[in-house]
C-alpha cells in the first residue's frame, strides 16, 4: 500500500525549492572566479578579483566599521535584553509585565524604514554629529528584540527549581544568577547575541539613512558599488561575505547543538 502521507509532487517540488534557494548564491560565487571584466561573460578561471577585493582599502574600512558597530551593539543589546528577560520571565509581581514585553519588542512591530526616519530626525534635532555613535545607538535599539527572544525562550523552557534551591542554600541573588541561572541560560544568551550580531552586520536601511563620511558600513558600501554596476570584484566580495556568514551560522549551530546535548 502506498503511504498516504506522501504527496506525489511534494518531493520534487521541495528539491526545486532548494535549488531556487541556492542557485542565486551559487551564480554569484561562480562568476567571482571569472577572469573577464564583464560579470556574466565567462572567459576563464581567475582569482584576481579576490586579490583586488582584499587590497581594497575602502572595503576594509567598511568591514572594520561594521565589525566595530556590530560588536558594541551586540554587547549592549544582549545585556539590556538579558536584564529585561530575567525580570519579565522570573520576576515576581512585576507591574506592566505585558507592556514591558511589548516595549522590548517594539522594533519588530514597525517596518525598519520608519525607525530609520525616526532616529535620523532625532539625531538631527539633537545635533549629534558622531557617525559611529549614531550607528551604535540605533543598532543597539533594533537588536534588542533579536537578543531578547532566544533568551526569553530559554528562560521559559527552564524550571526555576535550581534557582530556588540556590536561594534555599542562602545564595545571594547575584551569586544565584552568576553560578546557576547564567550557566543554564548561556545557550539562549549566546543564540541571542549571535542573532543580534548578524542583524547588525546585515543592516542596510538604518545604516544607509544615517550614513555619513567615516561611518559607511559594509552593506552600505556594497550598495554604493552595486549602483555603479556589477563587477566580478563585487562577486568576489559577496563570496567572501557568504563564506563569513556560513562560518558564523555553522559555529552558532554547532555550539547551540552541543550545549543542548549537555543540558
Amino acid at each position, binding site marked *: 500500500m502506498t503511504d*498516504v*502521507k506522501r*504527496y*506525489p*509532487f*511534494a518531493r520534487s*517540488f*521541495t528539491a526545486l*525549492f*532548494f535549488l531556487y*534557494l*541556492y542557485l*542565486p*548564491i551559487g*551564480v*554569484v560565487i561562480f*562568476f567571482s572566479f571569472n577572469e573577464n571584466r564583464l560579470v*556574466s561573460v565567462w572567459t576563464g578561471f581567475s582569482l584576481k578579483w579576490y586579490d583586488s577585493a582584499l587590497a581594497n582599502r575602502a572595503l576594509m574600512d567598511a568591514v572594520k566599521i561594521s565589525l566595530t558597530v556590530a560588536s558594541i551593539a551586540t554587547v549592549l543589546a544582549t545585556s*539590556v535584553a538579558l*536584564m*529585561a528577560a*530575567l*525580570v519579565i520571565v522570573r*520576576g515576581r509581581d*512585576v507591574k506592566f509585565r505585558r507592556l*514591558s514585553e511589548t*516595549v*522590548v519588542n*517594539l*522594533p519588530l512591530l*514597525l*517596518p*525598519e*524604514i*520608519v*525607525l530609520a*526616519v*525616526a*532616529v535620523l*530626525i*532625532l539625531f538631527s*534635532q539633537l545635533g549629534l554629529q558622531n557617525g559611529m555613535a549614531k550607528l551604535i545607538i*540605533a543598532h543597539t*535599539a533594533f537588536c*534588542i528584540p533579536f537578543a531578547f527572544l532566544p533568551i526569553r525562550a530559554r528562560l521559559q523552557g527552564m524550571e526555576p527549581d535550581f534557582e530556588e534551591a540556590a536561594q534555599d542554600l542562602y545564595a545571594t541573588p547575584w551569586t544565584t544568577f552568576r553560578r546557576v541561572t547564567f550557566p543554564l541560560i548561556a545557550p539562549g544568551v549566546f543564540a541571542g547575541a549571535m542573532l543580534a550580531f*548578524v542583524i547588525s552586520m546585515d543592516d*542596510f*536601511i538604518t545604516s*544607509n*539613512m544615517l550614513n555619513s563620511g567615516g561611518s559607511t558600513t559594509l552593506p552600505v558600501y*556594497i*550598495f554604493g558599488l*552595486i549602483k555603479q554596476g*556589477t563587477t566580478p570584484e563585487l*562577486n568576489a566580495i559577496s563570496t567572501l*561575505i*557568504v563564506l563569513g556568514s*556560513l562560518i558564523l*551560522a555553522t559555529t552558532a*549551530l554547532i555550539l547551540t547543538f552541543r550545549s543542548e546535548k549537555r543540558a
Partner: protein
Amino acid sequence: MKPTDFRIWGLAPAWVIMALTLVVPIGIVILVSFASRGAYGGFDWGFSPASYAQILFEEDWDGNLAFTPQYLSIIGRTLWLAGLTTAICAALALPAAYTIAQAGGRAKAVLIYLVTLPFWVSMIVRVYAWIIILGNDGVLEKTLRSLGLVTDIDSLLFTNGAMLTGLVYSYIPLMILPVFASIEKLDPALIEASHDLYGSRFTTARRVILPLAMPGLMAGAILVFVPCLGAVLEPILLGGGKAMLMGNLIQTQFGGGRNWPFGAAIAVVLMVLVMIFLMVNALRARPEVPHD
C-alpha cells in the same frame, strides 16, 4: 538589595532605550509630518496638513489643487506586492515545510539548517544575486537565448516581477520556519484517519493539513508582510525609479529629494497601514493560536 530594585533596574535600560530611540522619535516624526518644508532641506516647525494633501493632490502654478494618482499608485503597488509576496511565500512554504517535516530525524535537522542558511547570508548579497540573474544580458537571458527559447527580450530588471522575485527570495525563510513548526506538531494519525474515511489526498490537504498549518501561516504572514511593506533594497535595486514602493519613496525624501515633512507623512501612512494589519490579525487570531 531589595527585589523591587532588581525589577526596576532590570527593565529600566530597555524602557529608556526604547523611549529615547523609538517612542519619542516616532512622536517627532508625526510632528514633522505636519511641519513645512525647510528652504535648505530639513523642515520648519508648524502645523499644516500640506504633506498629507501632497499625497493626493498636486499644486499647480495658480495654487489650485489637482488630484494626482502618482503616490496613491505607489501605496497601492506596495500593498499589492507585499500581499502577493506573502501569498507566494505561503504557497511555496507549505509543501516544502510538509516534506521537511516528513523527513526522518537527521535529514530533517539538515534540511531545516539548509532552509535557514540563506537567511544568514547578507540581504544585499542575496538581492545582488538577482541583479546578475535578471539584468540586461544577465544569466537568465543568456540561458534562455542559448536554449533557443527567446531571441531578444526586454530587460527583466526594473519591473514589478523582478521586485516580486527579490521579495519572495528575501523573506521566504521567515514563512517556512513558523509553518514548519506548526506542521511538525501535526499528528500523522489525523492524515491516516482522513484517508480511512475516504478523503482523497487533495481533500486531506485542504481539510486536515491546511487548517492545522494555519497558525504557522498566520505567524509567517506577519513576519513576511510587515517587512515587505517597508522594503527598501528590493525596490531600489530591482524596481528602479519607475516602479517605486513606499520604502524607497520615503528613503528618497530624506536623500536626494529632500522633503522631510513629505517623507515623514509617508512614513506615518506606512506605520498606520502596518498597525491596521497587525490589529486585524490580532482580532482574527483565535485564543488558542500562539501569538509568537
